């Protein structure tokens, strides 16, 4: 016999996941198949797809390179201002990414910093580089979060044993820690890429969302919808949903089945 509480909680979870499913599913009902194919192969969507994937992969790669040492040091070492570092990293998760976007714009659009970077041949405002930077900072906190708990789960005694057997810190990281954390590293990469792909506000502000130049898929949805090109907008949305499905599928399949070295 199920209790009343049990029944009502289960009902709530059913009702709201059904509504969510309905919402997502409705996307696939709206365009005609022909409309979808035409939109998919249109210059705009093709460009946006390529731009989104390429910037996201580069940004995610950069995030992982920085997030692994960051998360590792938060999990293992004690250092001054450690809790401040933790809060600063968590901060962007709490405020809208568009705020992060305007902040990046202010910093790099600043005449002094902007001109220094310009003289170095780096242009950030309204460029692809800007998109990558916006994606980087939006996704970075999520990546650190996952990696931090992963490294916390890897018992430091594995590392001690490895070192007591003659391996230095770097070799131990390579032979023991990273292999034991591979599930979490993988999960974190998938989440990071997904986050980069989905970034809208920050990318719009920093990249400028210029047609066939800095227009990513989320921006394409917004533009096309406001211009009345429903097919293009929906198609861009469907592509994003499919990418998310793939990400979640991969995540479920590989990441959670082998988080090793726990305990």
């Amino acid at each position: 016999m199920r209790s009343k509480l049990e029944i009502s909680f289960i009902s709530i979870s059913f009702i709201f996941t059904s509504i969510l499913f309905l919402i997502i599913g409705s996307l696939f009902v709206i365009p005609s198949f022909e409309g979808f194919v035409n939109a998919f192969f249109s210059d705009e969507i093709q460009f946006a797809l390529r731009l989104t994937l390429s910037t996201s992969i580069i940004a995610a790669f950069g995030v992982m390179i920085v997030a692994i040492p960051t998360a590792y040091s938060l999990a293992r070492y004690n250092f001054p201002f450690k809790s401040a570092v933790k809060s600063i990293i968590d901060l962007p998760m709490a405020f809208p990414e568009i705020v992060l976007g305007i902040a990046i714009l202010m910093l790099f659009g600043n005449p002094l910093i902007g001109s220094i970077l310009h003289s170095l041949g780096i242009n950030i405002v309204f460029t692809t580089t800007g998109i990558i930077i916006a994606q980087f900072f939006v996704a970075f906190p999520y990546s650190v979060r996952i990696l931090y708990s992963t490294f916390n789960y890897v018992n430091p005694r594995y590392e001690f044993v490895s070192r007591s057997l003659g391996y230095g810190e770097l070799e131990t990281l390579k032979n023991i820690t990273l292999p034991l954390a591979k599930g979490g590293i993988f999960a974190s990469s998938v989440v990071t890429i997904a986050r980069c792909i989905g970034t809208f506000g920050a990318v719009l502000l920093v990249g400028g969302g210029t047609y066939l130049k800095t227009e990513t898929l989320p921006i394409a949805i917004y533009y096309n919808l406001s211009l009345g090109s429903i097919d293009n907008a929906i198609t861009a949305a469907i592509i994003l949903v499919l990418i998310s499905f793939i990400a979640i599928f991969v995540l479920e399949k590989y990441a959670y089945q082998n988080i090793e070295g726990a305990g």
Partner: protein
Amino acid sequence: MFLEVKNLCVDLGQFHLTGVNLNLEKNDYMVIIGPTGSGKSVLLETIAGFFQPQTGKIFLEGEDITNLNPEKRGISIVYQDYVLFPNMNVFENIAYGLEKKVKDREVIKSRVYDMADRLKIEHLLDRNPETLSGGEKQRTAIARSLIVEPNILLMDEPFSALDVNTHAYLTELIKKAISDYQTTCIHVSHNFNDVWSLAEQVAVMKNGKILQQGIVADVFSKPCHNFVADFVGVHNIFEGEVVGKSKGITDVKVNQNLILHSSDTDTNDDKKVMVAVRPENIIFSNQSFVSSIRNQLKGIVTDIILIGPTVWVEVDVNGTTFKGIITPSSLDILGIKKEKEIYLSFKSVNVKIIDEEQSYSALFSA
């Protein structure tokens, strides 16, 4: 001296190791015992190089290794939970440290097989460590640490997860392997059998301090702290008062009994002290007799307990309970029964005086 730990202090915030000294000769086997939370694991990890001491030094063969990286010390460690690398099979676990030193695959293979053969785990070499039993994991972990021929092998309660029979069997196996490899060992244990069956040296630890270190027989027969005496199983510890001193003999009054202690102590009259007598040093007799034995007390047998091949006899002497240990045949010959009157004798040299201040500070200080 092979390993010398000098006045080591480690600060972990809430916990401190204070003024730890240890001395070990090559091929010594030392067992460290002490209650939970006394800092045994922290001490091992400091010797291995995972904690930096605030003050103090560690010398290995005369060389100061206090600031040397763990991987440069040649000190390997076996943990209670064994921490076998889950990303490697048993063979790879054992071979791991060797691969750093030896590049020839054939040499590695033959050495791993040899080690596995000694520890009777050769049939497990391609198993995943998660599938091993506790005893198998333990032997794999010891093999992994021993195969690199470390300067010192540290073992943190390696037997605690095993049942009694396995424990006895593996003790022999591991003792043999360790002595064949001529390895100097420090072994942390809660179990006195480990001390008797393995150790040459014993150290007793409490609250981040080593209370006493020395040869097993010495520490057990001459505990220098109340706590050590209690912990290592000296059962007859009494509180008394110094009532007189003459010719190297101190008279201590315990309840109404006078107990004589030989050898000079700096105790004054009226001073409260603890006196201890080991149960095996108590001689039972049916009559009083005159001899060089200075302490003779009359009491009533209150309990007779068989423990393994020995008999523990508890005797009440004017409200103080003494415990003695004898053989079953002595029990028969003397006809010892409950309620029977009996004489206890023990030599004054076998009476240990423990200064109360020092023992109490050892008991309660952090």
